[in-house]
């Protein structure tokens, strides 16, 4: 993993409104940050895996650049990359993070993991 990706990913929790973030690497390894009480590491991993499964049929039909699950109290964004990396961002609505979701997604797509 390149340092610039690591640095960028580690900076995500500091963006106001980010509740949790996670990434699935091409080799299947998972990592993430989140509120220790609401979103401990094992919960992030579980959510990532479950929604990644749901992402598969959508990807097969539509080839989305990203998918966003909009809930009453938060938005969950998944950004798949051609190199098989998958980013998950969980943000509170009407926050800086929510407003900048597209830019954060574009940044992830632009960052090379190799």
């Amino acid at each position, binding site marked *: 993993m390149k340092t610039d990706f690591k640095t960028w990913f580690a900076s995500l929790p500091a963006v106001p409104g980010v509740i949790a973030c996670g990434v699935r690497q091409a080799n299947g390894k998972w990592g993430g940050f989140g509120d220790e009480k*609401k979103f401990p590491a094992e919960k992030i991993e579980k959510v990532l895996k479950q929604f990644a499964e749901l992402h598969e049929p959508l990807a097969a039909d539509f080839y989305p650049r990203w*998918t966003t699950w909009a*809930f009453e109290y938060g938005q969950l964004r998944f950004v798949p990359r051609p190199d098989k990396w998958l980013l998950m961002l969980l943000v509170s609505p009407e926050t800086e993070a929510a407003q900048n979701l597209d830019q954060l997604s574009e940044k992830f797509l632009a960052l090379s993991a190799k």
Partner: protein
Amino acid sequence: MDADRDYLAAVGDAFLWLSENTWQIHTATGATPALAAVETGKIQLAILDVQPAGSDVVELINQLLQQQPKLKVVVMAGTATEEKRATSLAAGAGLFLEKPMSPEGMKAIFQSLCELAGWAVPLTNPAARRGVTITDLIHIECQARNSSVLEIFREHSLGRIYIEEGQIIHAICGELSGEVAFQKLLGIAGGTFELRDFELPPERTLNRTWEYLLGEATRQRELSEFRARASGMVSGSAAVSTEPAGQASELLICSGTGEMLYQWQCADAAARLGLLQKIAQRAETLIPELQLGKLDRLELQLADGRAILQPRADRLVFARVADRAVNA
């Protein structure tokens, strides 16, 4: 009924004061004591929190009405959503209201409760009806088999709806009359309305049931809102995109059970429906763990636009929106 004891005490005191001590108020913090209170047969009006402790609100409404079919039920929510409103009203609630945040709000709710229960309270100030929609008021009037004339304003009078003994018998809106006028009046945004004493209309132009007419109005409003949202013209509370306005290129609307209600340029409706049902089914099991509330929609950013999926309990909606060409 509400799990918050402080809220219960405050609301109880307020209703007692507003009713000039004529109401007898029984409070309950969960479904079991609420059912026990209604079983005594002394309760005429039940006010429920949208998330009752120990039960689901729809289930609780059903149980209460089974115990006492004439009971008037009102559901109150901290934040009212269209889905919560629709499921509560469909289950038999007479009103769905947001919890009051001010003394004025409390007075408005008190007046609405009196109207629903058929308890006489003069209603002279239209502002007092804040929080009650025109649909709510028609629902109340028809369910109580009242006779009245509802006048709708936006700066000046736009039209009238005539209700006789709980049946909507005539509607007029400018040059329009009948069902077209009725649907137009219910689709007006930002208007106000006044309930007037009944008078005979110049003609009778409506003979469908009020349930059908209100259901059709809801369907048309949802369709129009969805089209607008899909075209990027308005943003919902959980809107997730700030993309420029686009053109809807595909639209499918089904009932919660999968019956197709509307489709436009949908090449493979069965496949879209299958996807919506799969998302709805999986979301039901995965989403509660997230504690993020109900799923509003799933949005896919595509190379040439967006796809929006709304797997709600009462509606399954798929829309595809193409980005508008900059120099089109």
